């Protein structure tokens, strides 16, 4: 039994009772928060897992295309064709609040109006393998950005779930039992005080009656 170090007074008792109701209510709310966060988190993780598998295989595909391109072109001309990009990925970051966790939403905006306008070189001196590589990479880009958004959300949510879980556990297994024990302890102490003062009064009454009517002398 874990009892807090408090004075066993009525004032403390009513204070602790108030704290206990707050703790119980907080515990219930945090538990609901944890459950809902967990549900959303697991859905998100499943989705992220599928997306990651897809993106990884696509990137592997792109790398294969690039290997092909570098096989038919010299390293210098390959590097030279890629050196001055036409596009610039601009990301607008919005945040969404899910159960008090801020998670990001990345919205990408291409610099030029035509998002498929990516080739930073003329077609005369480059191989079509390089075109393939760049087109395939460009097609992965939206998925990559979505993956980044999902994974960051997972990261933030998992941290919040861990925090909430700790709070729930500490309330459930430490704070609330401690309040309950202390309340019980104070209640018992007060009752005990009550009984002892009652017996003292009865004793005093007996003594006074004894003195007034001289009961012991008559016997």
């Amino acid at each position: 039994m874990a009892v807090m170090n408090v004075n066993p007074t009525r004032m403390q008792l009513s204070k602790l009772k108030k704290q206990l109701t707050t703790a119980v209510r907080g515990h219930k709310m945090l538990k609901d928060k944890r459950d809902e966060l967990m549900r959303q988190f697991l859905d998100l993780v499943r989705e992220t897992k599928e997306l990651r598998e897809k993106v990884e295989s696509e990137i592997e595909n792109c790398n294969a295309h690039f290997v092909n391109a570098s096989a038919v072109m010299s390293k210098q001309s390959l590097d030279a064709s890629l050196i001055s990009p036409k596009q610039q990925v601009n990301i607008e970051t919005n945040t969404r609040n899910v159960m008090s966790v801020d998670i990001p939403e990345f919205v990408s905006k291409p610099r030029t109006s035509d998002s498929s306008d990516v080739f930073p070189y003329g077609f005369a001196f480059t191989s079509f393998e390089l075109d393939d590589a760049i087109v395939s990479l460009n097609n992965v880009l939206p998925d990559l950005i979505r993956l980044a958004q999902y994974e960051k959300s997972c990261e933030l949510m998992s941290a919040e779930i861990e925090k909430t879980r700790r709070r729930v556990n500490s309330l459930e297994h430490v704070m609330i039992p401690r309040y309950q024990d202390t309340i019980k302890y104070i209640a018992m102490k007060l009752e005990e005080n009550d009984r002892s003062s009652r017996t003292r009064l009865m004793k005093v009454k007996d003594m006074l009656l004894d003195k007034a009517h001289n009961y012991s002398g008559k016997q």
Partner: protein
Amino acid sequence: MDKNVSIIGDSESIKGFSAIGIDIYPCEAEDDAAHLLRNIADSEKYAIIFITEEVYNSVEKERSRYADRITPAIIPVPGVKGNSQTGKKRLSLFVEKAVGSDIIFND
């Protein structure tokens, strides 16, 4: 405010990304990676920093500084050397942290 996207890794893996508008930061030595990541992340220019798996595994301390911020999102991607499952391990770590044990990837 609009931010950009960057990628850190060995130059072979990342050079293609420059064509589609991602800023590339080649990094061959592991020691430079930590410094580079810190510079890029602190510049507040990037919303997403992709990072190849080999480099990702060598900058654990730096990554953790940005774990609780919304941007930059530091995301591992496989490089030309093949897939080492780092991304999946990372996800399974999140599940483990949240649930207590990995219930998604343990099959």
